[in-house]
Every structure is written in structure tokens, then in C-alpha cells.
């Protein structure tokens, strides 16, 4: 789920093709406007919205039904997919994390082969090219979050096995390498940090046009 900066639009990811509802739903927060669908037919798991709201990134897990998995880049003015960054076919693209400056998108995925490969792909949002591919320590990355003003991205390396703790792997975004690992507990599916731009140490001006009027 993602919320546009003015809260007018709520973006919902859905992956229920049997209901004819797969894709990205754009829902009016006040219920005044009809719901529209972007990327109809694609199975979408996670969403990330650029800070100014003009680009929406969606993790596409269509490889699970014979399509292509990857990251969809959506222009929110036209509600259309402008490009696709393909990842491993038949992989489950789970977490997405934008760095606070919006210049890089980190996307986690794992393949459905056994043993599975789990990677984090670093996408340059300027031209949507792949900057780096980081091989994760474990087999099932389930979520990502940016931290430390974008100097780190945290990757949840989840283990669905009793008696085995999961870890949070720490990616140094300057080198795009994993340089630390933090032990957590059983089978986490999510990780949350304070959103970029709402912290006192971030530049928040782009969100307060009205502040400059006087």
C-alpha cells in the first residue's frame, strides 16, 4: 500500500487473478472517484512511491504464474507502466525500499527453485538500470527498509524453521555489500523504519510549497 503526498490516492497491491482484481488499484481516499487499475493481470506484492508522488514502483510476482517477475515503474500522472525492470524469472519479488534521496530503489527477491537464491537488486531510478546485484546470505528475503538516512538498507532474511532465528542483514549502500547481520526471531515478514522526509534532519521543503508564499 502507498499513499500519495496529498492523500488523495491510495495505491493497493493485489495478486488475486481468480477474482479479476490483480494489479495495482488506485482508490480515492474519500470514495468520491471510481477505482482504476494499473497493470491489470499482473500479480503485485509490494509498492513504493517516490517522495513527490510522481513514480510508483511495484514488485511484480507474475513469474509465479508463468509470466515475468520484476519491478514495474508507473507514471502516476497517466497511471501507466512506463518501464519494467525484469528480475529472475519465477522469482518472488518481496520488499521494495527507496533511498531517502529517491535515487536508488532496492528490490529483494528469491527464486522458487530449491535451494532458492535470494538477491537484492539496486536500481538507479534516473534511467531504471540495474546498478548492482547483492547476493543475500539466506534463502528467503521477505522485506526491505532504508535506514540511517539512506546509508543502510536492512534486509529481512526470514527462516521458516522452528529453532532457527532469522536475521536482518545490513547493506552498506555506499559499497552495496552486506557488512553486518542482526539476529531477530522466528519468521518475520516485515520491517519498518521512520519514513524519509518526516525526520527533523531531512530536507522537507518539497512538501510545503505553501511555506514559501509569505
Amino acid at each position, binding site marked *: 500500500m502507498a499513499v500519495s503526498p496529498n492523500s488523495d490516492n491510495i495505491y493497493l497491491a493485489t495478486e488475486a487473478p481468480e477474482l479479476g482484481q490483480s494489479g495495482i488499484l488506485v482508490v480515492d481516499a474519500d470514495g468520491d472517484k471510481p477505482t482504476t487499475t494499473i497493470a491489470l493481470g499482473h500479480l503485485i506484492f509490494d509498492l513504493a512511491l517516490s517522495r513527490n508522488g510522481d513514480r510508483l514502483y511495484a514488485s511484480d510476482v507474475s513469474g509465479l504464474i508463468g509470466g515475468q517477475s520484476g519491478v514495474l515503474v508507473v507514471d502516476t500522472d497517466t497511471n501507466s507502466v512506463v518501464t519494467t525492470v525484469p528480475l529472475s524469472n519465477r522469482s518472488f519479488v518481496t520488499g521494495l525500499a527507496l533511498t531517502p534521496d529517491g535515487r536508488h530503489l532496492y528490490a529483494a527477491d528469491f527464486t522458487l527453485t530449491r535451494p532458492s537464491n535470494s538477491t537484492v537488486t539496486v536500481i538507479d531510478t534516473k534511467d531504471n538500470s540495474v546498478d548492482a546485484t547483492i547476493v543475500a546470505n539466506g534463502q528467503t528475503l521477505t522485506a526491505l527498509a532504508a535506514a*540511517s538516512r539512506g546509508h543502510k538498507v536492512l534486509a529481512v532474511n526470514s527462516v521458516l524453521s522452528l529453532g532457527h532465528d532469522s536475521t536482518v542483514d545490513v547493506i552498506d549502500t555506499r559499497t552495496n555489500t552486506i557488512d553486518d547481520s542482526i539476529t531477530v526471531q522466528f519468521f518475520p515478514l516485515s520491517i519498518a523504519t521512520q519514513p524519509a522526509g518526516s525526520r527533523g534532519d531531512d530536507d522537507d521543503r518539497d512538501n510545503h510549497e505553501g511555506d514559501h508564499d509569505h
Partner: protein
Amino acid sequence: MRKFLQSVFCSRRSVAFTLSTGLCLAAMVMTPLSALAKANNNAYVPNNNGTLSVIDTRTNTVIATIPGGFNHPFCATVSPNGKLVYVCSEDNSIKVVDTETNTISASIALPGAIGFIGNEGAGPSVAFSRHGERAFVVTSGGGVSSTLYTINT
């Protein structure tokens, strides 16, 4: 929105009331300072066994593990001001965690499972508005429809 309204209010008032201008300037200076004090450097990880791990991202260490109260939690979202974490629980509720005390301060009951129909259990089922006045959560009612709820935070 709060800053925007405040700036409009102040600029209009300042024309007529010198005293109000002074008060407004004070308020505007204080806003970034208070925001700075609320920076939250933690990451929150809901573990399926019913706990929430709190990681200090500056030191990469777990500084707290909040026990109990969560029913197979599967998603977490931090409010824009860093003061709250909304944690999705499988008992159709959002547990509200106070990040100053690392305790559950409230529970918001929902009429259905959290998550879009066909996407239950996915991480991103709760989101805050840009300035945190509202939160949005989607639930599936057990049939073929989903409902979007707005929470006044």
C-alpha cells in the same frame, strides 16, 4: 498540512496583529526543533512468534524485544513522526506501539483480516498519510470484496 495551515494563519494575522506575528514566528522556529527531537533511528521487525524486535540502526543491535500482545504479527509501519508503530496482528487488529516506552498503547479492532483479498499477509497493508493525521488499512471480509478503512490517528 499543519505547517501549511500555520503559515497561512500566521501571514494573515501578521498584517493586523503585531503580537500574533511574534507568537507565530516563535511557533515556526519551534516546529523544526521539535521535529528534530522526534527522529526515530530504530527499525521494527515483527516476529511471527509474537514479539517485536527493536533494532538501533546506528549500532546494528537489538535494543529491545517487545514481548507478547501480538498475535502472529506480519506487518509493521512507523508513523511519520516516529512516535508510533502500527503492527498488524492475525487476530484482525492493529496493535499500536508507543516508541518511547516500547509498549503496546492501544489495539484497533478491524472487522476482517488485514490485507487485500488475495494478498492477506503481505507486508504493505497499512500506510500513514504524509503527515500522519490518518492511517489507511485494507481488510478482506472473507468474500470477494475488500474494504479500505481510514483511521484517525
